[in-house]
């Protein structure tokens, strides 16, 4: 007998809350239907009523976790429209903040993955260490989450020598901590056993379904805007695109941990090689008519902004394609043939949102129409119980 399980639409943490309707045969998911459009705030329309400069504030508030990504993507596009060339020091500071944001986002996500897999001390550890990055970001920009460092034509705040030293110190600590996580991972066979083989997405389907970001990279597709279409500073810096070929949640963890290390490398290079000079140039109030597509590699994948100008001081159209949206088709594929117990884990693996764990699931018996409401936390408990008896690979090593 097959059941239908609706999940959502109250899906607190996503910027695009969605409703999932899963058809299950016993424990196995046979089909997934996605409904989008809940919790829609009308940001794109709102952007048309605000000036070019005010819109930085608006785009930053599209998402709180990758706030800098959206603002950077928007600013890049507008600068192209206005034919502005930001000074190199400004660009370095901009992308320095971008990499710090990637670190904070990936640490946050690692914690969530640990929580979903039932490894709560890992969650507490990574969130404790995340505070180091938050402090650095606060020191540079003055705010913990919405940094507001971007402006048209550069950045708003400069970095001095003392701050540079603090950043390097913080990164050194973080690198040590990240290596410690590898150690924990390598000695924690139950964690590896829980996440290996869950949420399989083959390389072919990752390409066919246009997956982006760590999800695509974990399936062996080396897709990274920073490498493929290097904007501004990334062309001058030395880093690698982290990939894994296990195609499962384990691979996604590995990719993100590797990316953390690459980000530390990038941060060190940028701090050490920070060019002298101004941090911003003056931007005009209006932009010439034209249109532009701006791409940026956000922590979760490729972020695209399309901006159209009509010669006034406001955009005529701003279209945002956030990475999470691009990953939905791939998520459907991952969930198919998975177990109900794995839903939280697979879902958390595409999007680093802690509040995902708090949504309600209604189980509807197709035959009798009987409903029972299950909390995501209960699902998690079921998942843990199911895996407690799973054979544990001894001496399993985290393939890093």
């Amino acid at each position, binding site marked *: 007998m097959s059941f239908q399980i609706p999940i959502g639409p109250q899906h607190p943490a996503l910027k695009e809350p969605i409703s999932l309707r899963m058809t299950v045969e016993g424990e196995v998911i046979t089909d997934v239907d996605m409904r989008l459009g809940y919790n829609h*705030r009308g940001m794109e329309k709102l952007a048309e009523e605000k000036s070019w400069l005010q819109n930085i504030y608006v785009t930053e*508030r599209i998402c*709180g976790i990758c706030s800098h990504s959206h603002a950077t993507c928007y600013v890049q596009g507008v600068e192209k429209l206005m034919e502005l060339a930001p000074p190199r020091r400004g660009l370095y500071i901009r992308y320095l903040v971008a990499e710090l944001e990637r670190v904070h986002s990936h640490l946050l996500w690692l914690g969530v993955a640990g929580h979903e897999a039932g490894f709560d001390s890992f969650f507490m550890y990574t969130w404790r260490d995340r505070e180091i990055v938050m402090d650095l970001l606060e020191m540079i920009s003055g705010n913990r989450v919405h940094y507001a460092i971007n402006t048209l034509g550069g950045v708003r705040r400069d970095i001095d020598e003392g701050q540079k030293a603090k950043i390097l110190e913080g990164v050194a600590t973080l690198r040590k901590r990240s290596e410690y996580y590898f150690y924990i991972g390598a000695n924690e066979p139950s964690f590896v056993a829980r996440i290996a083989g869950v949420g399989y997405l083959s390389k072919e389907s990752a390409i066919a379904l246009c997956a982006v970001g760590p999800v695509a990279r974990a399936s062996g597709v080396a897709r990274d805007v920073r490498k493929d279409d290097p904007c501004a500073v990334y062309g001058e810096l030395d880093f690698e695109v982290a990939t894994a070929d296990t195609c499962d949640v384990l691979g996604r963890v590995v990719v993100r941990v590797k990316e953390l290390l690459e980000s530390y490398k990038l941060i060190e290079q940028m701090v050490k090689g920070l060019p002298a000079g101004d941090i911003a140039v003056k931007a005009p109030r209006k932009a010439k008519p034209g249109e532009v597509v701006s791409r940026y590699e956000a922590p979760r994948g490729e972020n695209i902004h399309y901006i159209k100008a009509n010669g006034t001081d406001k955009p005529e159209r701003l279209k945002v394609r956030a990475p999470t949206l691009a990953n939905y088709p791939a998520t459907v594929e991952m969930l198919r043939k998975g177990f109900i117990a794995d839903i939280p884990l697979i879902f958390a693996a595409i999007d680093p949102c802690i509040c995902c*764990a708090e949504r309600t699931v209604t189980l509807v018996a197709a035959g009798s129409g009987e409903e029972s409401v299950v909390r995501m936390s209960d699902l998690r408990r079921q998942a843990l119980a199911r895996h407690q008896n799973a054979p544990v690979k001894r001496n399993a090593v985290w393939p890093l």
Partner: protein
Amino acid sequence: MLNKLTRWSRIKSPWILHLNSGACNACDIEIVAALTPRFDVERFGILLKATPRHADVIIASGPVTRQIRDRIIRIYDQVPDPKFVIAVGACAMSGCVYRGAYNIMGGIDQVIPVNMYVPGCPARPDAIIDGVVKLLGKL
């Protein structure tokens, strides 16, 4: 006697429910950050609960979008009396940058009564803790 006991336990260990009504995530990660080792609200006996039926205090973030309005009222009704609402962030207070967008109702207080406002965009974890502690002081 019993009254004293319930009052004491309410002050000593309020259970909170985190409610997001269309926030940009930033306020939410700051609320979660308040639960993790650096800020650690559990030392005040504050515990995050997943279900409204166990909660005493609703910590709400975000402007109210039209679709989520009825859901918020339903969740508010499910919380047992006495219940308190803390609005975290500029959005929950007034709608913040989204104010005037076609799908936004404004602050949380348009929909349910609010006891305490914590300003900020996003509010810092220290501010959120301060809000909760001040609310407890009022009891």
